[in-house]
């Protein structure tokens, strides 16, 4: 298929006003905040050696923290802060999306601005400083009429660097709930939609380049004392910001549906959003959210609904190490969720549990049917899992229940695990029971006869604000109990198909057609 006739380009383009607008807004806010903090600090620090050293080291340390980690750290920090203000002053704020993204990115922008402002001010010749004093300027007049104007070109170079960094790093704010051009990249990576990945990278790079060039115009204008050029650059930036502000005025959705970072979540979130739209509401998806982020976002009403898994909540949110039979666990979960005003609307019908998976032929050859059978062979085998499995209680529980011990353990991007198992690169993987790739690669799920892994029923959760929302519940209820494991596996397989029919929206429509007939 011709790369450019792929219908997914059109779909990507349709998201552009939303993603680009949010991206520019969060970048501009972060840069503005970064400048507002860095400039006075740099000016205050220029003649104070200790403060200056401390500031530059601190900013350098911040810079060494990977962007994704910095963004991720701000979420729990703000969450704790919001809880504090709520209990002390009676008001909280949303620790989701915009605010943590702006704060983390602003921090990230500080180093080049601080460094260049200090360097620029240092570069002003002592003879000029003495002249300023000698003609009768106060220190303040000297700063504003002589030192800052002379340092401006160097400062602008720092601001340019900061702008490019912020725009680039803003793509990583998707997992903490800030829509950005990163949505293309995260969604694309999860659903193997390379058109989206490419589109997101191109859009972010183009934006960064455009802003860099406009700021270069301002910088050169200042350097050559060419007002026209400087103003042209400034007007360009202002126009860019204004254009991205326009669509945001118009849009506001009735409902926001969340999705975690994997394919199935993208499909289910698209499905719920479609049902809401079919019922006459406007609905948007907030995709690519981390497991904890999404739960907290629901709790604080930043999203209205999403699909989680009973075992995940049981273990992650309520820190329970003990397992329960399926029904009992659901009942208990419903009760503890209700205490946090969260509604467990019901189960979708399938479960997506961790499971040990291996090639069917090899399992048959070795006579392995269950994990208990596997235990004897494990010391000669390697096990691959996603990034969190080995630190999760399920793994501890499996080891304890079956005395499992593998020759080697590896971590992998989940989408590549199944192929690795099929090709024999690893012997066993910790896969997900609803993954379509299990059937595709002719793999088999090993039976957990001792119930070491808790049940993972897919359940729909509603935010406190939507507890009594009959319209929302009516729109989602037709999905409950209708999606069996075979449907979900096929949907997941389709979504990983890598063609025009594989977008989450298209797969969600297919899934609805299939279950709607029942």
């Amino acid at each position: 298929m011709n790369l450019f006739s792929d219908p997914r380009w059109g779909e990507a383009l349709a998201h552009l006003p939303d993603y680009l607008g949010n991206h520019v807004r969060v970048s501009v806010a972060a840069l503005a905040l970064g400048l507002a903090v860095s400039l006075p600090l740099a000016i205050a620090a220029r003649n104070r050696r200790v403060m200056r050293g401390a500031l530059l080291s601190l900013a350098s340390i911040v810079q060494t923290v990977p962007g994704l980690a910095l963004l991720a750290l701000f979420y729990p920090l703000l969450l704790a802060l919001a809880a504090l203000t709520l209990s002390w002053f009676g008001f909280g704020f949303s620790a989701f999306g915009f605010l943590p993204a702006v704060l983390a990115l602003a921090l990230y922008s500080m180093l080049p601005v601080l460094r260049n402002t200090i360097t620029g001010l240092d570069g002003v010749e002592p003879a000029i400083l003495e002249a300023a004093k000698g003609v009768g300027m106060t220190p303040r007049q000297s700063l504003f009429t002589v030192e800052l104007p002379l340092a401006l070109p160097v400062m602008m170079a720092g601001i340019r660097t900061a702008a490019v960094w912020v725009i680039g790093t803003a793509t990583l704010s998707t997992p903490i709930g800030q829509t950005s051009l990163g949505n293309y990249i995260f969604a694309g990576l999860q659903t193997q939609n390379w058109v989206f990945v490419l589109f997101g990278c191109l859009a972010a790079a183009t934006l960064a380049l455009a802003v860099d060039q406009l700021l270069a115009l301002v910088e050169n204008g200042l350097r050559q004392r060419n007002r026209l050029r400087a103003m042209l650059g400034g007007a360009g930036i202002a126009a860019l910001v204004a254009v991205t502000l326009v669509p945001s005025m118009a849009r506001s959705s009735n409902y926001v549906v969340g999705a975690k970072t994997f394919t199935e979540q993208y499909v289910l979130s698209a499905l719920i959003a479609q049902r809401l739209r079919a019922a006459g509401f406007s609905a948007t998806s907030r995709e690519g959210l981390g497991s904890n982020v999404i739960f907290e976002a629901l709790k604080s009403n930043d999203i209205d609904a999403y699909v989680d898994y009973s075992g995940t909540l049981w273990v992650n949110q309520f820190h329970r190490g003990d397992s329960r039979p399926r029904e009992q666990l659901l009942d208990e979960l419903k009760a503890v969720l209700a205490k946090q005003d969260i509604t467990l609307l019901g189960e979708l019908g399938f479960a997506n549990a961790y499971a040990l998976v291996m090639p069917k032929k090899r399992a048959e050859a070795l006579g392995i049917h269950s994990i208990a059978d596997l235990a004897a062979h494990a010391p000669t085998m390697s096990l691959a899992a996603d990034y969190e499995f080995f630190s999760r209680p399920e793994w501890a529980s499996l080891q304890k229940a079956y005395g499992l011990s593998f020759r080697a353990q590896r971590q992998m991007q989940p989408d590549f695990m199944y192929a690795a198992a099929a090709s024999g690169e690893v012997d066993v993987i910790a896969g997900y029971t609803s993954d379509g790739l299990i059937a595709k690669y002719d793999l088999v799920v090993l039976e957990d006869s001792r119930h070491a892994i808790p049940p993972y029923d897919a359940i729909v959760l509603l935010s406190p604000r939507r507890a009594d929302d009959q319209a929302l519940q009516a729109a989602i209820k037709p999905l409950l109990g209708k999606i069996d494991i075979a449907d979900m596996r096929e949907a997941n397989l389709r979504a990983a198909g890598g063609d025009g029919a594989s977008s989450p929206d298209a797969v969600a429509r297919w899934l609805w057609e299939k279950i709607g007939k029942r």
Partner: protein
Amino acid sequence: MPTAPLIAYAHVGKSFDGGRGAERVIAVDDVSLEVAEGEFLAIVGGSGSGKTTLLRLTNRLIEADTGHITIEGADVRAVDPVQLRRRIGYVFQSGGLFPHLSVADNIGVTPKLLGTSAAEISARVGELLDLVRLDRAQHRDRLPEALSGGQRQRVGVARALAAHPRIVLMDEPFGALDPLTRDALGDDYRALHNKLKLTTVMITHDMTEAILLADRVVVMRGGRLLAEGTPAELSASYDPYVGELLRTPRRQAERLGALLPRGGAA
């Protein structure tokens, strides 16, 4: 010779931190000196003689450790330093012009700080450009980088005179210029000094320049005053260093006289 001193230094001392455990460097050591109104005083000395420090103490660019400096009868320490600097003209070594401001903005900087109206400043800038013999139309809007060294120093002089000071302090103003420009600028300034009834303190390392321009010359070495007087009085000094300073230009003049017989262009 005019009567009441306009500037008086009484037992003025200043030392600087030598850095890293080194002893303090004494820059100015117990200097007493008076400058009469209307006088053109030249302070001559080599590098490290303390002449620049003494000049900078005058308008409080740095503060004296000991002694008193009085201007128009008032101790400079009793005056706000910013106000003091605004009413004393200061010509910096190689101009000290603000590179991001036009000639007109450089010249008008002190009047502007004093709150003079834009129209008045503009008129004053024109006057001053005439006074320092720069073409109004041609130079007004140029940036300092587009000027020659001599033109820059003329702008520096114009800037120092902009707020109608009675006193002008000059820090080796003509040191970096070629000999012809230097001579022309020196003569022009001396004429301005007379015309505007200024009181000028100029520091220089060049005894010839001092003798040719100043009413009175002071010689400094190692922070102390070695000798002072009119050029004629100085030549009566028995100090060997002063003698050396005076003999050198004379010897040069004599050698030049011998090497360049008169006639032709010379």
